[in-house]
């Protein structure tokens, strides 16, 4: 509720809202009052849908693994916003039943030959690698031959927690010069992590809303924390400083960002669309305001993960 209200308030501060009325802050406030309910409800729905997004996955044991008997595949609905090693305990337990203990090393996942980096959110991995494929997502489980060059080791959940918290701090550094996250107490940080780990939407957003506030005179964050992922690229992602409000006072949109950061993603006029800009499995319109996107479509680590994938040719 608080987040929803916040979004509404945030919306009102954006000047690009009006329908039929004139543009003035007061008008926006009144508009918010009349038509705000739907937008508020929409914002809340958006947040919830983002949090509770699931990907149906089929885990199959690698054939090279030595098993006592044939292992059935394991199906699981993975949360988009979480991390692989955080949610695959059951998978491990399932496959360990058919394996001898001495053959088990650290579990790692792989999709069509590509080792899956656990420090990327699951949704990002899916959108990047398998967004246009047939569901369920088939992941192969390995227990040996850990690819040290490609993947990071994840011995325990505290590693994931440390990575998660560092992402949040980094994002807040971009947004608020780390003021907000430093004002929070250790228990608040813990609450954020626990909310993610236990899949508690309200618990998480009780703290996260603070990270989504901004001073009114600014009109938005200082810089938008974002990462643009490319399916085929050498560098892992694009992350640069980008302001949500233009010097003239206009709100930047997604298109502005892409044009700035990855112009090839946006087709020129007349050209067929070659790339899809996917966030959380959907393609937002390019005129979607960036500030709104950062507030609502960020991952729990407060980053806006954008995947640019080639459009599938049918």
């Amino acid at each position: 509720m608080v987040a929803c209200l916040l979004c509404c308030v945030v919306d009102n501060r954006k000047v690009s809202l009006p329908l039929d009325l004139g543009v003035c802050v007061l008008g926006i406030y009144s508009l918010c009052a009349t038509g705000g309910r739907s937008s508020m409800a929409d914002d809340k729905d958006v947040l919830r849908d983002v949090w509770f997004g699931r990907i149906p996955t089929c885990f199959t044991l690698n054939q090279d693994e030595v098993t006592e008997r044939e292992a059935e595949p394991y199906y699981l609905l993975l949360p988009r916003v979480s991390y692989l090693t955080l949610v695959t305990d059951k998978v491990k337990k399932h496959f360990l039943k058919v394996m001898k203990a001495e053959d088990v090393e650290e579990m790692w996942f792989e999709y069509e030959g590509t080792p899956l980096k656990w420090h990327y959110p699951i949704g990002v991995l899916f959108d990047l690698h398998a967004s246009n494929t047939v569901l369920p997502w088939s992941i192969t489980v390995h227990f040996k031959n850990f690819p040290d060059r490609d993947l990071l080791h994840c011995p325990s959940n505290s590693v994931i927690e440390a990575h998660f918290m560092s992402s949040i701090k980094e994002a807040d550094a971009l947004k608020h010069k780390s003021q907000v996250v430093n004002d929070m107490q250790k228990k608040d940080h813990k609450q954020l992590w626990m909310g993610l780990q236990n899949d508690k939407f309200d618990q998480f957003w009780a703290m996260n809303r603070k990270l989504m506030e901004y001073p009114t005179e600014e009109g938005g964050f200082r810089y938008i924390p974002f990462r643009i992922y490319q399916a085929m690229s050498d560098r892992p992602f694009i992350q640069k400083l980008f302001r949500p409000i233009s010097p003239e006072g206009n709100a930047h949109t997604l298109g502005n960002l892409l044009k700035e950061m990855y112009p090839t993603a946006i087709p020129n006029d007349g050209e067929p669309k070659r790339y899809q800009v996917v966030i959380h499995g959907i393609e937002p319109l390019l005129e979607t305001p960036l500030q709104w996107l950062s507030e609502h479509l960020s991952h729990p680590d407060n980053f806006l993960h954008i995947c640019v994938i080639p459009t599938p040719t049918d």
Partner: protein
Amino acid sequence: MAAVTSRRITTDSAGGSDPRGPVLPPGGSGRSAETWKRHIVRQLKHRDLSQHAMFQDLIRFYTQLLEKTSLAKGILSCSLRRPSPDSSSSISALLHQNSQLKKTTGELAYQVVELQQQIKIKECVLEEQHARLAEEECRLAGAFDSHRELQERVERVQGENGALKTEYDALLERQRGAETRLREEKVRGGHLVEDMIHLKQQAAARMNSRNERRSRAREANLQKELQTAARSKVTIDSSSSAPTSRSTSPKNENQDQESTEQRHTRLFRSASATSPRILSSIRELFDRKRRGHSVCSLEEDLTCPVGICLSARVPARALHVLDAHEQGINAVRFSSSSDLLATGGTDRVIKLWEVRAGSLTHRATLDGSTEGITCIEFDPTGLRILAASYDKSALLWRLDDSVPKLTLTGHIRKVTAARFSSLPHQVVTGSADRTIRLWDLQRAACVQVVEVASYCSDLVCSENCIISGHFDSKIRVWDTRAVSCVQELPAQGKVTSLDLSADHRQLLSCCRDDCLQLVDLRRRSNDRMCFRAEGFKCGSDSTKAVISPDGCFLAAGSADGTVYVWNASTNNLETRLPDKHSSSISAVSWSLSGEYVVSVDKSRRAVLWSDI
């Protein structure tokens, strides 16, 4: 489409199409803030639908199946590991396993049934216990109720007890108060009794002193006379009567005295001067008068003359009216031999009067009674007076002696009549104690007591009989010697007085219901004549009526103070004598000569009537 504001940045129409969702309608114009948001919302919903919802149930069921199969696998693997690793015999092993499982299932089912039965039994027991518990609770409630009731009763009874106690205390207080008052009253009563005794003692002392004085005076007198007699010269003459009696011997002085007193011819008595009884009379002289032992000398045996009235005169006017006594007068009597009158009343004395020249002159006063006089009689000689008194005694005086010679005590209540009997030395008294006593004067003792049925109000004596009148309206005639009731005559009412005519033939009775009755005693038939008069009311229970000495007239005094005189033969009222008395007349008496009638009343007045 909405207007585009200056602040909005338009983007190209290729907003991107969702590869799996509906293609957005391309439109460069009219993209509002809501559009992209709605687009995003829609996209998210669609994504969830296709990615999440479709696989959710499937994956769940798959997982459940997986668990079940792994469980079964686990069981199988456990059992399989033991018998043989060979897979060919796995089927038989499975079958064996199956049968075993069935057996165990059967056993378990049996156990389940047993346990269920036990549960049922336990439940029954539990219910029973619940029922018992409920019962006990009911009983407990009942016990509590009765306990409460009993407590209430206890409190009530205690309250009543408290009230009773307070009542009792109050009563105790009252009783104590009453007791103290009783004690005080007793003390006061004791004091009053003491005072009374003291007063009586004083009266007795006074009486004694007076008697002493008188006896001393008499002695002194006697001494003086003896001395003078001793000194005087006595002429002795030859007459047989006087000399020896008039010798200077002091022994005969009593006779001297006696003879000087006598008026009637008694000289022949002196012949007995030398009789041996001189000694006794001398003794008597010097002795103090002792009650009960005084002896009447034979000299007083008498044949006395009996006067006869030739004719009585009807009284017409009052000659003398005087207040004779200090208190009410109850009785009046003319002497049987002269015109000497005796009156007696409540003031306890008898006054003797002489009728001289039409007036009553006081002659002597006889006292000695301690209470009022009820009846007076002169003896036939006229020398002695007998009086009946309220002090339950009859007294006898000699006329010259104011101290009674005899006192006859013995009655229990007041003596209403005392008469000289026809027998010598005998006195009859009638009393309110319902007895008639006969007394012997020589011994001064009661010789006989006759019980009568009723209060005797008056007595008369004739030669052979005593006649008594009673309050039960009867007149009884008693034989003198045998002293038994010979006859009973009825009267009209309570008999208040009786009177005999001079010839002892007629008996007059005065009754309380205002009538006089005259009865002829001699005739067998006992005629009665009744005399009434208008205005005549019998004033008291002791009103006295008399027959005139010649027997022709009857006189009685009424309650209004009028004297009524009837003619005995004609039965008519002869005359009425009103206005002299102011209160009820208690007695009348007719003089022997027939000349005078005296009436006395309760207000101490005596009136002398005569016809002149």
